[in-house]
């Protein structure tokens, strides 16, 4: 079982080499590049196993990440679709782009995507799966924005990346929660998780990931905007494969996460809402690709809707629908691209009469259109199987929703598959060129397969339906696929929806011509508004707190500090004990004097006065030291204070004139903050003073300084003897600083002289 890894690796390498191949053989690149995927398609078709096969190799054991791949029925179905349709799309690209320069990049990205997508469906390790999942998002981003000179291509690309990438992170979170709870990174080893205490979180996160990827309501809006991609990309990524990754993962995890009420209800409601939204919005469109995109949304909703039910029968119906949808929708997208190529228009309302110009294309389109209507064999079979499930026992609301979707599909099929070829042409539509063979092969092959597959139901069931049912349905489907279910309720339902759909189709041109423009609402706009809102919040933020002013920065910092301290104080109530009764009158007088000096310093309009009053505060501190028995400290303080005042005055000499730059309001805020900080610091110091550590060492020094150090001045003994080394260090530092000052001084004078000379 090394082969899955080999398949991914070889296709990945091919993607890296594709631009070079294109440079060598621009006219035949598609023909050559489609061969390896086609080979792997055949291989997967021939190898569909009855039970899963696994291959594992360790990678990052700390995170529990292994290289594990697993091939079972479900993986095989998707692998066949990815490689098979991939081959057709690569061939089609040759006809679509020709030898246009830059197409090498398109081939390369398509192949890289192909390899990543194959990785998603083959990976058995949760994180490995996520890596490939993200790789599909990134390649999809690059492919949607392929024509990056167009603004709406760039917007569509970024939108798709934000939505699917964001959902991807939710998915990662969900997967990690599961891995942590189960202690197991291998998806196939996860048992049912419904009993887990974190089940809801797991399900919600995984579901968000899957819903965003598969364009489910309310995340559906990115898919139509992704139609700015080149048509091969739309056909491949945004219809046949990538958007099915979410559906695939839901199917894959239905064994672990499924079977609960939350699962059933969420998937039913979201799937149903998506079906209705997709169908109704599709009918408002006139652009072929956007029509198809919305109908793809509806189809994806159907898949989710089916998965809600669980069990082998639903699994088998799911397989039939996925297969049928990939074939007809892929074909129709390719046809739309070919029409665009032929008539230079994608306007379904104006196109018509193209069958004369492109008869082969018209045939392919008809066959695929019949598939979408649910008339062509494979699609008919899928629809009958689905309705069978809904009828036993009859589930009326679901039948109605499904009926609307099916009728809508009929109408949309009529609009995109028949009208451009057989309808009346608008004379304004230009005469284009005829589509050539590579452009026709893809749609033709896919459309024909949709017919052939339905004609050999037992054979296809053995390869596809049965293994899928075994892989995710937990057993074998008791009703193998059959084309003819007899005359009964399912057939009546089909006929009914067909008739309704045809009626809508007939009414459509008149209705679309009269229809008022769509009122502007919807999730696309919500996304825009969200983006705009985020940006304006960011702008406001920048204006208010990131204005470049140092004072504002200090204000924020101090305010934060105050808020935090206040919060802490409220919560823990440190209650500093302030005992005013012990204060002596002269102490109180001193404190008052210092307070007044501070106020004077703040209020002063002259710098000199401010400094002098500040000096008063300093000398007050010195006096306090003296009062509390620290004369040495007081002396130091006086010296420092004097020096500071002198330095201040020296600096003033160089400063511009004193001016008040701030208004009353800013000054009030400043005053508030300053008072707050002062009060807080005082409170903190008071709190600190409540705790006394150990015994003071001063008694020891006083006793021993004469005996041990033969000195009567205790302070001197401490400085030069007990702490001699410290003092030495201090003196050294001081000397070096002094030298530095001298150096700067002389250098400055020399520079000034040089400047003047």
């Amino acid at each position, binding site marked *: 079982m090394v082969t899955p890894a080999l398949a991914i690796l070889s296709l990945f390498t091919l993607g890296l080499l594709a631009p070079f191949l294109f440079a060598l053989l621009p006219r035949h690149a598609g023909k050559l590049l489609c061969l390896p995927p086609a080979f792997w398609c055949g291989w997967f078709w021939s190898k569909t196993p009855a039970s899963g096969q696994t291959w594992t190799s360790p990678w*990052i054991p700390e995170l529990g990440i292994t290289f594990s791949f697993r091939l079972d029925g479900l993986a095989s179905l998707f692998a066949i679709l990815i490689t098979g349709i991939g081959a057709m799309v690569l061939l089609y690209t040759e006809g679509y782009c020709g030898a246009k320069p830059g197409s090498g990049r398109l081939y390369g990205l398509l192949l890289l995507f192909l390899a990543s997508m194959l990785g998603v469906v083959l990976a058995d390790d949760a994180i490995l799966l996520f890596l490939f999942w993200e790789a599909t998002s990134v390649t999809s981003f690059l492919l949607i924005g392929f024509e990056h000179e167009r603004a709406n291509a760039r917007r569509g690309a970024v939108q798709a990346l934000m939505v699917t990438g964001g959902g991807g992170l939710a998915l990662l979170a969900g997967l990690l929660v599961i891995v942590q709870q189960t202690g197991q990174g291998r998806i196939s080893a996860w048992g049912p998780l419904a009993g887990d205490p974190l089940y809801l979180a797991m399900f919600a996160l995984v579901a968000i990931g899957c819903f965003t990827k598969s364009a489910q309501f309310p995340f559906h809006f990115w898919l139509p905007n992704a139609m700015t991609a080149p048509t091969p990309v739309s056909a491949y990524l945004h219809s046949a494969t990538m958007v099915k990754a979410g559906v695939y993962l839901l199917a894959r995890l239905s064994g672990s996460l499924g079977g609960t009420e939350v699962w059933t209800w969420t998937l039913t409601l979201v799937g149903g809402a998506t079906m209705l939204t997709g169908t109704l919005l599709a009918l408002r469109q006139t652009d072929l690709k956007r029509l198809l995109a919305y109908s793809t949304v509806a189809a994806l909703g159907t898949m989710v809707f089916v998965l809600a039910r669980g069990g082998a029968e639903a699994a088998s119906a799911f397989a039939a629908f996925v297969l049928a949808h990939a074939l007809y929708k892929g074909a129709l997208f390719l046809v739309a691209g070919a029409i665009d190529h032929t008539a230079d228009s994608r306007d379904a309302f104006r196109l018509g009469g193209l069958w004369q110009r492109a008869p082969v294309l018209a045939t392919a389109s008809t066959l695929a259109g019949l598939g979408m209507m649910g008339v062509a064999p494979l699609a008919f079979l899928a629809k009958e199987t689905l309705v069978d499930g809904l009828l036993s026992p009859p589930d009326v609301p679901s039948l109605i929703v499904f009926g609307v979707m099916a009728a809508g599909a009929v109408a949309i099929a009529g609009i995109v598959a028949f009208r451009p070829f057989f309808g009346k042409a608008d004379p304004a539509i230009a005469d284009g060129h005829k589509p050539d063979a590579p452009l026709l092969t893809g749609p033709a092959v896919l459309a024909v397969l949709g017919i052939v597959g339905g004609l050999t139901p037992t054979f296809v069931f053995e390869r596809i339906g049965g293994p899928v049912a075994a892989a995710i349905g937990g057993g074998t489907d008791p009703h193998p696929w059959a084309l003819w279910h007899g005359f009964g309720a399912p057939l009546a339902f089909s006929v009914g929806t067909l008739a309704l759909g045809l009626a809508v189709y007939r009414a459509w041109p008149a209705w679309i011509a009269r229809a008022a423009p769509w009122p502007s609402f919807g999730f696309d706009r919500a996304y825009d508004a969200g983006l705009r809102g985020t940006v304006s919040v960011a702008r406001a933020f920048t204006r208010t707190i990131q204005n470049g002013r140092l004072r504002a920065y200090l204000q924020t910092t101090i305010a934060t500090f105050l808020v935090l301290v206040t919060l802490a104080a409220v919560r823990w109530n440190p209650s500093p004990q302030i005992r005013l009764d012990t204060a002596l009158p002269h102490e109180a007088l001193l404190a008052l004097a210092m307070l007044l000096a501070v106020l004077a310093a703040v209020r002063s309009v002259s710098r000199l006065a401010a400094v002098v009053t500040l000096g008063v505060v300093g000398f007050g501190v010195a006096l306090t030291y003296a009062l509390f028995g620290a004369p040495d400290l007081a002396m130091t303080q006086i010296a420092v204070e004097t020096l500071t005042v002198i330095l201040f005055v020296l600096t003033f000499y160089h400063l511009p004139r004193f001016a008040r730059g701030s208004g009353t309001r800013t000054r009030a805020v400043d005053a508030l903050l300053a008072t707050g900080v002062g009060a807080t610091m005082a409170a903190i110091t008071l709190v600190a003073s409540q705790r006394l550590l150990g015994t003071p060492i001063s008694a020891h020094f006083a006793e021993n300084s004469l*005996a041990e150090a033969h000195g009567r001045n205790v302070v001197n003994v401490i400085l030069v003897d007990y702490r001699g080394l410290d003092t030495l260090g201090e003196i050294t530092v001081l000397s070096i600083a002094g030298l530095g000052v001298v150096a700067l001084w002389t250098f400055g004078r020399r520079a000034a002289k040089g400047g003047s000379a």
Partner: protein
Amino acid sequence: MYNLLAQTDGNGLAKRLAEAFPPPTIDWPSILPIALVVCTGIVALIVEMLRPRQNNNAIIGFSLVGLFFAGLSLTSQFASPDLESFGGMVLRDRFSLTIQLLVVMVTGLTILFSDGYLRAKRIPFGEFYPLVLWSASGAMMMASSKNLLMIFLGIEVLSISLYVLAGMSKTETKSEESALKYFLLGAFASAFLLYGIAFMYGATGSLHLDAIRSAWNPNDEAFRNMMLFGMGLMLFGLAFKAAFVPFHQWTPDVYQGAPTNVTAFMAAGSKIGAMAALWRLLSASTTNVDLGATFQSYWMPALFWIAILTMTVGNLVALVQKDVKRTLGYSSIAHAGYILVGILAHVNNPEKVGIGTTVFYLLSYSLMTIGAFAVVSLTAKNGKEGTRFEDLHGLWKRSPFAVGCLIVFVASLIGIPPTSGFFGKLMIFNDALASDLMPLAIVLAVNSVLSVYYYVGIAKAAFVDAEGARTPESAPMNLGLAATCLLCAGGIFAVVILFNPLMNWLVGAP
């Protein structure tokens, strides 16, 4: 001491001295790396005086060789046992060795691309190299001690050099402004930190983190209050250095104004140091519940919110920036938030979450940040430098290699697999879940989405064709810059491919 000497005869002196002053254990190898880096700086300064004026190659050569030997001495100690020496001032354990190695690596990468840039900006001062080396030695000190004063000294050594470096482009006002802002606010933060250390000392009578941890007693109210204030003030100071919101405001201004190579070192080296110190402080400030309320139950909520704020504000404000350096500055704030989540996860559940995540993230973050700044430094030429988004226009045509690397860096900054940025985020995410910090994990995820927008903008700017470009043609690629880009971009993938052996080597077997 006179007394001591007077009473003893020759034989007993040594013994009595040893009893009176027990000699501290001295383990020279444990300070050898720092000593090597400092001495390299001194040598570089001497070479600066002797070298020919036009050429910095000799200084660069000496610096790189010195760093290489420092790295060698670090790796050679990986097998040595954990050890505290110099009287508990220097600690050698896996964390300190790994962090020091990261700092050495970051310094080397910065020096490698600096010369071309400094020349293009016409500020090829040889002093850059010794200053950046000394700054690095400060970051190394911060990681290799459990003594609060040593950590403080480390921060100051780191910062003071950076203040000078930020203002190195003397002709540009914005460079001078950034230096002044950085200095004033940095000094402010240092004061807070020091005051907090004083409180801790006042409460516990020790500067050693282990002693502080064992001293915790929630039932003695006065003691508890002092420790809480001390812790709060210290966190305040460190949050400043690490640029957590709301202490981040200096970051964008300084990052934008400082010369780009200095910014690169600041964003990586300085952040590694701050994070290492924070990691040490926080993991030493966790206590068991036996005593009643744990220490962390007091400060954890504050840091929890700071992490949320840091991630969100960093990414949000980055959305509207027009300058690449500023954007990367905000991005570095956001990444600081991510790293904080990783640290908190470790603190919350030290049994399950080891040092691996923090170390790996710092490694990966350094690679991508230095790489990104290195590419941005290409916009300098003829003494001018424009770092607005439009100044990157057309870079694709002029140096496709640099733009190719830029894409790798941007992808890694976003966290797109299979880059190291993705795995780093994955590990943090995993850790947050493992230690019951689910809300932080969710905020991290949401922010990752937000960040896509502006990171893609950086890459996009390089691809847009230059139309009537404002700035002169950007500087030509030079060998050093190409080497830095190659090492960083290669490293981003290499650390993922070699994840297992690398992490085993760096942090030991799990």
